[in-house]
């Protein structure tokens, strides 16, 4: 016979507590009427007061006390649900695997119905309810998915201790080892009767887990053909969003998505219109990543376009963004008149510059608006426009320079410094000591300089081009240097931190969630914060929470020990009543 769910120490404590309570009850069971008498002389002799003053003598009716003690002991044993060998064969062994991977530390999407709740809290609460609902006859062990962790609760631990320890579990800092936990669970169940593994995890299911939907249907995990039931709890978290927009040769949309994201589309709509300019399908390939989408057919005409995700994911701040397309208008950049002679031009690696070749006196080539640098065609009218910069129209053709009033020509024939076109014809000449204006168009620009020997001039030109970049037309909605998940229209600094408060240093450029450790991350900026979940495993899309945390009915078994004890209690009560009726017990 075993006493399920109770260790011997707890059982002894239970019986001792019952005996103490019985002692108190027996002592206090009668509230005697107080009667004042002339003398106690005869009463003392009648009741043998010396015996009544001793502790055992308090039990004036030893037979009644023995009955009550027997009842209390039997009830205590019945509470422990003792079990015969036949009953033990029907004992169910349940291993509860509690997924405490870092990804569960994310808080659920408010639209998922559980606003603000950490998903792991729901998972843990479900496990607690499950343990509460289990019969004391069931043997329970609890594991977590923390790599290398021992059992949280072993078979012989009291049930209340198991519930307490489950309540103390916190999400791990790193990736959970779900497969390893299941293997450990299967190993613990080897040779046990009625084995069962119950996995409590988040709404997303790992792809490599042989799980079917539904709780009641048993599934099996290797090794050992152990039935596995899965309880999924917690709401979905945000798993896709627009993280950046840029306009280079074409409009680029950067979309980040998690592993659980369903297929979605990116729609680009010009402001004020209903027909989309473009619709791009995105099919997440099972890994969290950032997709770089080039949207064709979007002209740089300065219009306002709206980029949005279809269907929306419920996060309006990152499922749509406004973008002002660039304009192909000429920008003016002042050249410092203190430029030392001869004026130099820098050819340096730059997002908008390309160095065709190294060497002295390389020619300067300007190309605007096309993916490939274009050399000025021979006979270009540029040459005829002395004192002016290169101008190209929207199609990449050179245009006449537009010089403002008071702006003197840049070139002077006698200055000696000349910008050469691709065909080696001079394009412009910098005149030392005279103010000059260089007008360039935005776009892809390749510069080469014949003045590479002049470091000061080259550095000056580099600064000039930096300013060009800063004055890039058509301010982008999301600056190029902004990290991922930045809100549209803001250039505020972005902070990225995980739930442990660790921050990513010097975030520049788009953030690829693949670079992040699994877990929950908080992105803050522009006065708002968001959380994303980085899942450690390949997971299926989040589904609805599974059913109740309740196992199927236990197998039928023969009458158990506690039932026999309860029967014995009933018999004793009847005997006690019979003795009362017969007057054997006052």
């Amino acid at each position, binding site marked *: 016979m075993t006493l399920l769910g109770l260790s011997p120490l707890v059982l002894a404590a239970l019986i001792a507590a019952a005996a103490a309570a019985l002692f108190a009850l027996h002592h206090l069971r009668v*509230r*005697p009427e107080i*009667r004042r*008498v*002339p003398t*106690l002389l005869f009463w003392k*002799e*009648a009741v043998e007061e010396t015996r009544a003053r001793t502790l055992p003598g308090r039990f004036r009716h030893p037979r009644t006390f023995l009955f009550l003690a027997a009842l209390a002991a039997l009830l205590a044993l019945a509470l422990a649900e003792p079990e015969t060998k036949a009953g033990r064969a029907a004992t169910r062994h349940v291993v509860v695997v509690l997924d405490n991977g870092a990804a569960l530390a994310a808080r659920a999407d408010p639209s998922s119905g559980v606003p603000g709740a950490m998903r792991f809290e729901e998972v843990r609460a479900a496990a607690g309810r499950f343990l509460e609902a289990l019969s004391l006859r069931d043997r329970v062990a609890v594991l977590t998915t923390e790599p290398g962790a021992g059992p949280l609760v072993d078979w012989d631990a009291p049930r209340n201790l198991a519930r307490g320890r489950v309540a103390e579990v916190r999400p791990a800092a790193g990736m959970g080892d779900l497969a390893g936990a299941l293997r450990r669970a299967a190993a613990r169940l080897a040779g046990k009767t009625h084995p069962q593994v119950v996995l409590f995890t988040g709404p997303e299911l790992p792809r490599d887990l042989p799980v079917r939907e539904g709780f009641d249907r048993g599934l099996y995990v290797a090794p050992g053909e152990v039935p596995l039931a899965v309880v999924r709890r917690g709401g979905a978290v945000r798993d896709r969003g627009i993280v950046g927009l840029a306009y280079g040769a074409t409009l680029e949309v950067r979309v980040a998505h998690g592993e659980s994201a369903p297929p979605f589309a990116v729609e680009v709509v010009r402001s004020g219109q209903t027909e989309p300019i473009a619709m791009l399908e995105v099919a997440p390939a099972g890994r969290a990543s950032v997709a770089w989408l080039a949207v064709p057919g979007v002209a740089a005409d300065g219009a306002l376009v709206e980029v949005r995700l279809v269907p929306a994911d419920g996060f309006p701040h990152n499922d749509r963004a406004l973008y002002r397309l660039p304009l192909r208008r000429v920008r003016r950049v002042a050249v410092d008149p203190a430029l030392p002679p001869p004026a130099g031009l820098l050819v340096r690696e730059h997002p908008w510059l390309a160095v065709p070749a190294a060497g002295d006196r390389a020619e300067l080539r300007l190309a605007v608006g096309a993916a490939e640098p274009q050399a000025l065609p021979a006979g270009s009218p540029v040459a005829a426009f002395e004192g002016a910069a290169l101008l190209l129209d929207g199609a990449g053709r050179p245009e006449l320079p537009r010089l403002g009033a008071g702006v003197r020509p840049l070139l002077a024939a006698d200055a000696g410094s000349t910008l050469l076109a691709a065909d080696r014809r001079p394009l412009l000449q910098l005149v030392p000591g005279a103010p000059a204006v260089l007008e360039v168009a935005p776009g892809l620009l390749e510069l080469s300089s014949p003045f590479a020997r002049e470091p000061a001039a080259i550095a000056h030109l580099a600064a000039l081009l930096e300013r060009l970049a800063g004055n890039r037309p058509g301010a982008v909605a999301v600056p190029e240097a902004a990290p991922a998940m930045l809100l549209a229209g803001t250039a505020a600094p972005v902070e990225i931190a995980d739930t442990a408060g660790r921050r990513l240093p010097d975030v520049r450029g788009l953030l690829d969630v693949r670079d992040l450790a699994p877990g929950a991350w908080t992105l803050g900026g522009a006065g708002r914060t968001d959380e994303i979940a980085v899942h450690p495993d390949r997971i299926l899309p989040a589904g609805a929470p599974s059913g109740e945390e309740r196992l199927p009915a236990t197998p039928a078994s023969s009458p158990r020990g506690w039932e026999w004890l309860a029967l014995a209690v009933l018999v004793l009560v009847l005997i006690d009543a019979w003795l009362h009726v017969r007057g054997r017990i006052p």
Partner: protein
Amino acid sequence: MSALFPEDFLAALEHLRIEARQVVRGGRLAEHHAREAGGGIEFRDYRAYVPGDDFRRVDWNLYRRFARVFLRLRDEVRDLPLHVLLDQSDSMWLESPPRADAARRAAAVMAAASLNQLDPVAVHPFGERLGPALGPVRGKRNLHRVLGFLEAQVPLGRTDIGASLAEFGRAPHRPALAVVISDFFDDRGLEAVVKALGALRHRLVLIRVLRPADREPVLAGEFRLADCETDQTLDVSVSEAVQARYRESYRAFEEGIRSFALARGAALLELDADAPTLPQFGVLFPEGVCRP
């Protein structure tokens, strides 16, 4: 006249008398015959002269006739002091009506009987020790003083018969009639009571004030009994067996008192506090005369 001593009660006291079979010589002239013949009035007998006799009692007429010396013996009539030792402990005042009422009426009966024949009467209330006493007083006219003293009695606390009677015994009283009126409930037990009574060098009349419930307690079930004098408590499950043991213990107590009275030659009146007092004194005063 009061509630304690109604008029009919007082009227009945006028004809009670105490006739001691013998009294010791000494004291004042009264109505009790002394044990030895003395200088009284009534002739009792003659006896032959022995050296040392008082020549004043020689009957010289007989000497002239028979030439032998005889003494004329006369009864010596003396008084018999009465000391009423009245238990006024808390146990006497517990129930309603209290036993003290019956005890005080009994004291009045005995005092009135003595005062009717010019005997000195003193009343000594006691509890744990002797309280303020009355007397001795003499004469019927002082009956109202005795009654007033009895009416003014209050509970005197615990019972210690041994200490109280010992204190009484240490006083220089000449041999008298001592009437002890009490329930004789002393938590020191019957032996202490008997020892104290036995130490008294007086003629004894014991009046034990009781109630029928003392003998047959009307209790059944669980009780916490509290001694009215000591406040000591005792939890008792009053079952048939316990009641039987109680009755046995009480009967032993009664038998102890009776045996002592019989051995000592003391009169014993068991006075039921719940019944009228005077009719119960018929046992002690047959034909209105008490002969202790």
